């Protein structure tokens, strides 16, 4: 007579072993490499309407760099396995230099005696140009941004400008050099790609940031090689650009 009890025990054990086996195989089997869903290499995906203000468009630096970038005003800190690399920004609006936002010179006279919040409110009205990753493409303020991104061990630079930029500047060139005292490359900005009122271009194969001290960078704006050389000479130029160094 077959011992039912033994059969049940054996079946039970087998079941347990089978389930365990399936589980083990499932865990040990290398899973097919999952395509990235959140992070994307397409710059257009990084540009979207701000969730809090439909008129605003943001460049999502977290998305673009997989969280490797810390953006400060006038500075980006990029963290890689090699260490820290920082990029520094500044601009010129019609011949006058500024850090991240351009305010007309008489702003300080106008705001004499005002409290800070009043000054801020007036600054919002008077700013003419700004460098940063939040844009309002149609507010009349010229907006630009340069994003450093590590690709295949080197940095490439994505340049974003808005509709106001395209409309206000007579022309937009990109100039770049590892040392501005030496060879300077130049080409026009390509307005053919972009979205939400923001145009995107890209510069690669440049390594000025690897030198110390740095003498190169990228300049984007109403600038040519001759006007840059004039600036280096100390001549005043009524031009508009943004620069990363």
């Amino acid at each position: 007579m077959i011992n039912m009890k033994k059969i049940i025990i054996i079946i039970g054990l087998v079941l347990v072993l089978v389930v365990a086996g399936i589980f083990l195989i499932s865990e040990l089997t290398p899973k097919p490499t999952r395509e990235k869903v959140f992070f994307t290499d397409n710059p257009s995906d990084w540009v979207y309407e701000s969730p809090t203000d439909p008129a605003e468009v943001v460049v999502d630096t977290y998305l673009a760099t997989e969280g490797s970038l810390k953006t400060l005003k006038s500075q980006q800190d990029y963290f890689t396995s090699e260490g820290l690399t920082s990029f520094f920004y500044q601009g010129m609006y019609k011949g006058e230099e500024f850090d991240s936002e351009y305010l007309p010179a008489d702003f300080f006279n106008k705001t004499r005696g005002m409290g800070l919040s009043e000054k801020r409110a007036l600054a919002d009205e008077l700013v003419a140009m700004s460098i940063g990753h939040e844009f309002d493409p149609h507010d009349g303020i010229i907006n630009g941004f340069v994003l450093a991104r590590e690709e295949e061990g080197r940095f490439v630079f994505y340049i974003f400008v808005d509709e106001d930029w395209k409309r206000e500047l007579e022309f937009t060139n990109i100039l770049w050099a590892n040392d501005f005292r030496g060879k300077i490359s130049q080409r026009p900005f390509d307005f053919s790609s972009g979205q939400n009122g923001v145009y995107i271009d890209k510069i690669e194969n440049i390594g000025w940031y690897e030198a110390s001290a740095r003498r190169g960078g990228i300049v984007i704006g109403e600038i040519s090689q001759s006007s840059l050389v004039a600036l280096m000479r100390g001549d005043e130029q009524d031009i508009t650009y943004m620069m990363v160094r």
Partner: protein
Amino acid sequence: MKKGEAFTLATIIKGIIVFFVIVSGWRIMADLSSTPVQYLLGNANISQFDQEMQERFNLTQQMNQNAVNSVNGLIFAVNSLAYIDTYKEEKDKVLGLFDPNVFKTPAERKKLQEPYMRSFGSVDIKPTYYDRETVFVSPSATYDEGLRELAIGTINCWLIFHDKDTENTNCYSIVFEDGYKHLPAIDKLSEKDFLSYLEKEKWNICYYLSERFKHIPKDTCANEVEDITGGSWYSIFNSENLNWEKLPDDYFTSREGQQVSICANNDGLNEVFFHADSLGNACEADTNRLSFGYKVNNFALPQEFAERSGVGGAIGYLSEEWLAAYGDPNYILFYEKFPQEEATYWEMDSYQVGFAAIIGTEIAISTLSVITMGLGRIAAPVIRPLVGVVKVGGKLVGGTVKLAGKIVPFKQQMRAAVGAVGDVFLTAIKNSARFILRRGVAADTIEEAGEIIIKETLRKRLGKEAVEELGEDSILLMKKKAAEAFGSLGDDAFDSAGRITTQGREAFGGEFSRVMQGTFKDSAEDRLIMNALKRDIPNFDSVIRDLGTTMGKEMYDATWKLLARAALNTQRTANRANNMLKHAALDMSEAERKGFLIGILRDSETMLTKMSPNELRIFLANQRKAQKLILNQETGEFILGQTGREFTDEAKKQALRELKNFVTSTDVRALVSRTERMYLSVASRGLDMTNPLMKKRHLLAMAVGVIATRLESMEAKYYPIGTNAMGLKTPYLHTATYGEFNFLDVSYSDINNFTDGIASTDQTKKVESHKELAKQFLEDYGEPGLQGMLPETNRYYLSLTKDKGWFDQDPQRFHLVSPCQTDILLEVSSCECYYDENEESGVYKTGKKYEIKDGEGKPTGIFLDYDHFDGDSTMLYSIDNEHNAIKECHPKSFVETVSFANPIYTPLCIQINPQVENFGEDNYCYHGISDFDTTFKAVVSITEVLAPFACVVFVAAPPLIPVCMAGVGMATGVSGEVLKEAAIDIPSQWPSHD
């Protein structure tokens, strides 16, 4: 009228006049006189005065403790950040990471993190993290919108987690801005409720997500939601993947509930976590190397202000009163050197400005810098017993010292000498010994480390500046000059310092070793230390004896230096005073002189009335000596002596005449009398003014000496304190220096080579030993002898992040000024530094060899090949008077135009970012955004008697030009009318931040 009646009327009238004179004179005196005089006159409550003194003393003690705790807290944070950033593997320990093959319990992880979290009093220091994106929910958002952001954050975090192959990840910090009304409603949700919401609303949520992130299809999003909520088919093995257990109850309505962090952790179950920001790296994510910083909470450099001061009023000063008395804010904290331009925001005194023009050259002992104030009192009890020690018949015999009439035995003298400074040294030595032994460092390292540490500790305690820079010639020169100037100074200590014998030092050494041995007998631990030291340091007894001798020598050297510096300080004060008087006497017009001297008297009176008794004692102890150099003790005549511009006898006579005429002139007599009474009242407080010659002309000299001493104190903050050091300056005291603490003389290139993996075996050995001791240093940081900067910190430039907004203030060399109450964030970044190497201006670049030349173009024999700064980026630096390399980093605005030809240097820096919530009148910290339209107190209050000399003083932006209205010009010789129009902007805004 009859003769009798006239007499009566006249008498009555006289009586009335006398009565009025007495009453009004009394009133005037009472009004004009200071608190002490009022008490003398019986116009005030003496017990209240006592109570005021007590309260003021208590307040001062408390303020000091707060300031010291804050400074130590900040330095601890800087040290920790530098240490962790320099040694990568340390960062892992801090973050609580573990080798995946080795599991640690939460308690074990916490233990690894503890050394990097500290408290000093109410000041807390802990790591903080920057590796998550902040998403703001606006105040006008609805409940649904707020909840949706949490949902989108959750889904995205899950996606990010899987994009990173389920590595632990910090994703978001969702911040509900002030005014968002729906937090209580969100608080009512449980984790299950939120999961249900996710499941139920997934298509709605995914619609919004896909609208924003167009590359994420809705159905992909919906599938991921199922994974999170446990709706997918394999949920039998792994149900929902959301975890709120790290969120306390009622979190969203709590104080910190406006911010919630979302992260993902693979610890077995692969879950998305919600947690409070204060939990830090709750998911133990492998944070990128530098997305990690420090936070110092409750940092404070106190400075109390009152609405009004005076008898019965609050204890405190109006800001103007403070500056009149002390010259500088209560606390100035700075890194390597104080940025000179920052002091313009409180320098209100026109005479101080004028002095810059008046005080031409100082005596040519310019190789010495850094004054010490009030340290002479430490030297005396030490030095005295060591004087005159000789050997008689092979035995050491001491000089004669009497105490209360009795001759003190030699042994007791020695004991006193050691005891005077012994505590500090012995505590430091004990700590250092424990420090070594606790780490279980190898025996041969102990000997090396121990000896060096102890010597280093002693060196630190005795004084940072090394005496070898003085050189024999300098010492002789200084001694000669000081002797000439001091004349009958008769300061025993100073005189005696030159006569300490070798035998004296030897005797000290013996006593020291005896005391040292005795010290380590108290407790079991002490005995253990002593036994370990004896075991591991061969010839321990002779080592200790040598140590004692060395210490004796060091102390001798250091004391000499302290005294020399005190002497130098006094010399400078005297010179300054003499210069002022000479200039007033000879170089100014009569009107200018009157205005100037009136201001001197007024200011000195203000200073003396406004200081607390304890501070006044310290203050007067130093300027007292200066006065001896200004006045001839016998005749009371001014000594217009060595000033760099020689007087002829005739010129001297004329100068004295002019000054004498001034003080006796009717115009100023009232002020002089008032000030004279002031000085008397100060003397009446039991403070020894020492000068018995209280004649009017001496009053001027004293007043000038008082002003000169304040100037000296204010100048002291500009003396650099060396490489890699923090300085804390308070008025009339020397700068407390938190210098570099280098255990094994490990150099920056050693450290950089070590971190780059290219260190030699020797370098590696040195750095490994140093690293262990440095870690222990961090653990014990704050104890006596263990306060200062690690050499690792020298790899960074310490920069102050200033206001950001519609107007970016350039970062600046780190400094903070009281009043300052704030939390501080510290993080490693790179700084953008302009300018370029310029040998002529004394600006050099790391990585290059330079030959340094002195002022006459002669090589000084110092070749600088400063190590590559942080191992990677070059850096600019300049050289201070003591041949320390001070890092230089100039912001963009430093260069006239930002030309493409200007290079930029990008060294590693630690950005120190005060998070001041309420900048206002009483929270300065640093000069904020200002267009310089604040008018600081600019009126010299002169009574109506002296109205013609009323001055309205404006201090304009550089060049600083003092102005007096009514045509009274100043040292610059520019006429008052012109200056009055030119003075528009007044950058004196302390203590307002902006």
